[in-house]
C-alpha cells in the first residue's frame, strides 16, 4: 500500500510533468502556427524547400519513368528553391490528393503548394491561403462524342455528365446547368470515369480544357470526340502560401514575375551568364541583381541573394522555356490563348522590377 505522503509525491510529480509538457508544447505550437510565422527563415535554416505537388497529371506534375518529379508546376517549385537556396535540386516533393492539399498546407506539412490549384475567393480567405500570381490560365470545358450532335451546353438539357469529385469543376458544372435538368456522375479517379464516358454511361465529360486536350489526344480516334467551344469557368492556376507569411509569399510572387519578365527581356537559361556579366540596359541589370555599367546592384530586400533571378533562370529557365518544355507537348499552344505574353494579347504580364 502507498501511504499518504508517497501518494501525494507521485500525484504532484505527475501534475508537474504534465504542466511542463503542456508548456513546452504550447510554446512549440505558437512558434509553428500561421500568424506571424516566417517560413522563409525556416526554409533557409532547413536548407530545403518542402513543396506540395501533384504526382499524376501529365505535363503539370508527374513522376517520370526514372522516379523523378517533372512538370510545369514542379519547375516552379525548383525555381523557388533556386531563388531561396541557390540550388533547384534542394526540394522535397510531397504528393498530395486534391482533398488533402489545403489541410497539408495549413498543418505546416509543406511550405508552399503548387498543385494546379484554382484561385477562388473562398480558398483565398476561408481556407487561410494566399495565392500568388497565376502561372497558368485554364478554363473548364466539355467534351462530347462527335456522334451525339451536341454543339453547345444549352443543347445538353437532360444529359448525364461525368465529372471528377471534389473539384471546382463539379461546382462550376452545377452553376452552368442552373435551371436545366441534368445528372452529375461523380467519380473519384479518372480511370473509371473514362470507362464510363467511353461506354456511353454519360453524355459529356467536363474538366479543365488542358486536361480534356491531353485525354482526347490519348483516344484511339481523337476525331470521334469534340471539345465544345464554350468555357464554363475561369481557372487561374498558381502557387499558394499560408496567410500572413508575407516574406515567403513575396519571394514566390516575384520569382514567378521574374520568370515572366525574363522571357519578355529575352533572357534564357543559355544566355543568362553573358547577360549578367554585361547587361544591355538598367532594367535587365535590376532583374539579374547586378550593377549596370560599374554601378551597385539594386537590392529589393527580399531577404535572399540579390542575384536570385540568375539562379532561377540558369537552373530552371524563363516562363516561356518552362511552358515549351512541359505544355507544348500536350498540344496546348500558347498563340492566341490567355497564356501568351501580354505583348501578344495574352495575360502573362509582370509588374516592373524597380
Amino acid at each position, binding site marked *: 500500500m502507498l501511504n499518504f505522503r508517497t501518494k501525494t509525491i507521485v500525484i504532484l510529480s505527475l501534475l508537474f510533468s504534465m504542466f511542463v509538457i503542456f508548456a513546452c508544447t*504550447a510554446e512549440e*505550437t505558437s512558434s509553428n502556427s500561421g500568424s506571424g510565422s516566417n517560413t522563409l527563415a525556416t526554409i533557409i535554416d532547413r536548407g530545403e524547400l518542402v513543396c506540395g505537388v501533384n504526382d499524376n497529371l501529365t505535363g503539370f506534375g508527374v513522376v517520370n519513368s526514372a522516379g523523378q518529379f517533372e512538370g510545369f508546376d514542379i519547375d516552379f517549385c525548383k525555381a523557388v528553391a533556386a531563388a531561396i537556396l541557390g540550388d533547384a535540386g534542394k526540394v522535397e516533393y510531397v504528393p498530395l490528393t486534391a482533398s488533402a492539399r489545403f489541410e497539408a498546407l495549413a*498543418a505546416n506539412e509543406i511550405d508552399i503548394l503548387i498543385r494546379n490549384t484554382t484561385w477562388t475567393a*473562398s480558398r483565398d480567405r476561408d481556407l487561410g491561403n494566399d495565392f500568388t500570381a497565376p502561372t497558368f490560365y485554364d478554363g473548364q470545358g466539355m467534351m462530347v462524342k462527335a456522334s451525339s450532335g451536341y454543339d453547345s451546353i444549352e443543347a445538353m438539357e437532360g444529359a448525364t455528365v461525368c465529372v471528377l469529385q471534389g*473539384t471546382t469543376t463539379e*461546382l462550376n458544372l452545377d452553376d452552368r446547368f442552373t435551371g436545366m435538368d441534368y445528372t452529375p456522375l*461523380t467519380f*473519384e479517379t479518372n480511370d*473509371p470515369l473514362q470507362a464510363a464516358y467511353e461506354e456511353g454511361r454519360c453524355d459529356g465529360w467536363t474538366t479543365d480544357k488542358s486536361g480534356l486536350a491531353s485525354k482526347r489526344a490519348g483516344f484511339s480516334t481523337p476525331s470521334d470526340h469534340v471539345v465544345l467551344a464554350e468555357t464554363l469557368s475561369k481557372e487561374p492556376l498558381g502557387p499558394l502560401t499560408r496567410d500572413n507569411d508575407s516574406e515567403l509569399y513575396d519571394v514566390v510572387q516575384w520569382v514567378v514575375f521574374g520568370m515572366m519578365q525574363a522571357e519578355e527581356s529575352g533572357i534564357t537559361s543559355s544566355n543568362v551568364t553573358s547577360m549578367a556579366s554585361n547587361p544591355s540596359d538598367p532594367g535587365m541589370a535590376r532583374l539579374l541583381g547586378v550593377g549596370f555599367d560599374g554601378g551597385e546592384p539594386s537590392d529589393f530586400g527580399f531577404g535572399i541573394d540579390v542575384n536570385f533571378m540568375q539562379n532561377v533562370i540558369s537552373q530552371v529557365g524563363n516562363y516561356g522555356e518552362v511552358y515549351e518544355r512541359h505544355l507544348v507537348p500536350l498540344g496546348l499552344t500558347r498563340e492566341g490563348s490567355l497564356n501568351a505574353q501580354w505583348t501578344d494579347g495574352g495575360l502573362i504580364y509582370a509588374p516592373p522590377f524597380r
Partner: protein
Amino acid sequence: MISSLFKQLKSETTTRKKIEVLKNDKSFRKFFIQFIFSIFMLFFLFYLISRAFSLELGFGHLSSRAGFGLSHSFIIEYTSNDSRWGAYFTGVINTIRVSLVGIFLATFLGVIMGLARLSKNFLISKISAGYVEFLRNTPLLVQIIFWQLVLLQLPQISNALTFGGVSVWSNRGILLPIISSVENGSLWVLILLISLIVTLFIRSYLHKYKEENVKIFSPNLLSIIFFLITVIVSYFILGIDLRSDVPTLEINEYGTYIQSGGFVLTPEFSAILFALVLYTGTFITEIVRGSIQSLPVGQTEAAQALGLSTYQRITLVILPQALRSIIPPLTNQYLNLTKNSSLSVAIAYPDVFMVSRTIMNNAGHALPMLFLILSTYLSLSLLISLIMNLLNRRVTRIGT
C-alpha cells in the same frame, strides 16, 4: 514495500548507494519504467491535441449552400440549392439504403448457399463450394469495379432493350415497372410496415391468451382482419391512388435520351449492391454451414426417426438450434457489409463518405468532418449490434 524502500534510502548515506538501492528494487524499477512510458504517452497526447486546436473546428460550414449535384437521392429530394447538411443526409440515406438491402439479400443468399453446401447432391454442394472459394478470396474493391464494368456492357441507351415497352434496360440503368401512388405513397408503405409489426405482436399475444384461457376464436383470422382494417382505413384517409408506373424512354428536342418513371436500378447502385451481397454472402454461407455442422448428428437422426420431412427437419429442428451460434458471427458480417459500403466512392455512388469528401474539398475543415463520418458509421454499427443482440437474446432463451 514503498515505505521500507524509503527507510532503506534514508539509512544509506551516499548518493551512489541510494541509486544502487533504487536500481535493485524490483517494484521501483517497474514503477519507474511505467512512469517514463506514461510521460511519453502524455506528451504525445498533448502534442496531438495542440495540433488539432491549431486547425479550425466546428460545423458552421455545413449550413452553407451545397452547390453540387448528386446522382442518387432517395426519400429526401436533394437539389444543389440545399445546404451541405442536406447533401450529407442524402449520403447517409444512400449508405443506409445499400446496407439495408444488402443485409437482407446477403442473409437470404448465405442461408440458401449454406444449406446447399451441406446437400448430398454433388452438383449443388460443389456450386456452393465454388461460389464461396472464388468470391471470398478476391478483394472486394476489385469485385465492385468488376460489376461496374460488367453493367457498363449493357446496351447503350440508343439501343436500349424495352421488352415491348414495359421495361428499359441500358447501361444507364435498369428501369422496372412498379405499382405506385401519385402522392403519399411512401407514407402508406411505412404505415403498412408498422401495422404489420403491430399485427405480429397482437397475434402472439392472442395465441398466448388462447392457450391459457378459451379455445373459441382463431388468433390468425383475428390478426388478418385487424391488418386488413388498417390497410383499408389508411388507404381512404390518405387518398391513395394506385396506378401502374411503366418506365418510358423518350428523345428530347436536342437528341438527348430521357428515361423516366418506374423503379430505377442504376449501374452504380447495382454494382455496389451485387458486390457487397455476393462477397458478404460467402462468409454467411460458411457461418451457416459451420453452425449446422456443429450440431450433434443425433438431432438429424432423431428428426428423421420421427418421420419429419426434409423441410420440417431444417425449419423446425436444425435451424432454430443452429441460430444460436449463427447470430453472433452474423452480426460481424452485417457490420462489415455496412462499413464496406464506403468503398462505393470508387464507382460514383454518392454514399456518406463520398459526399463528405466532396464537402471537405469545397469547404476544408477536414477534421470535424472526419469526426462526423466516424460517428455516423459508429451509430449505424451500434444500431445493428443492438438489434442483433436483442435477437440473440431471444433465440438463446431456452425453454419458452
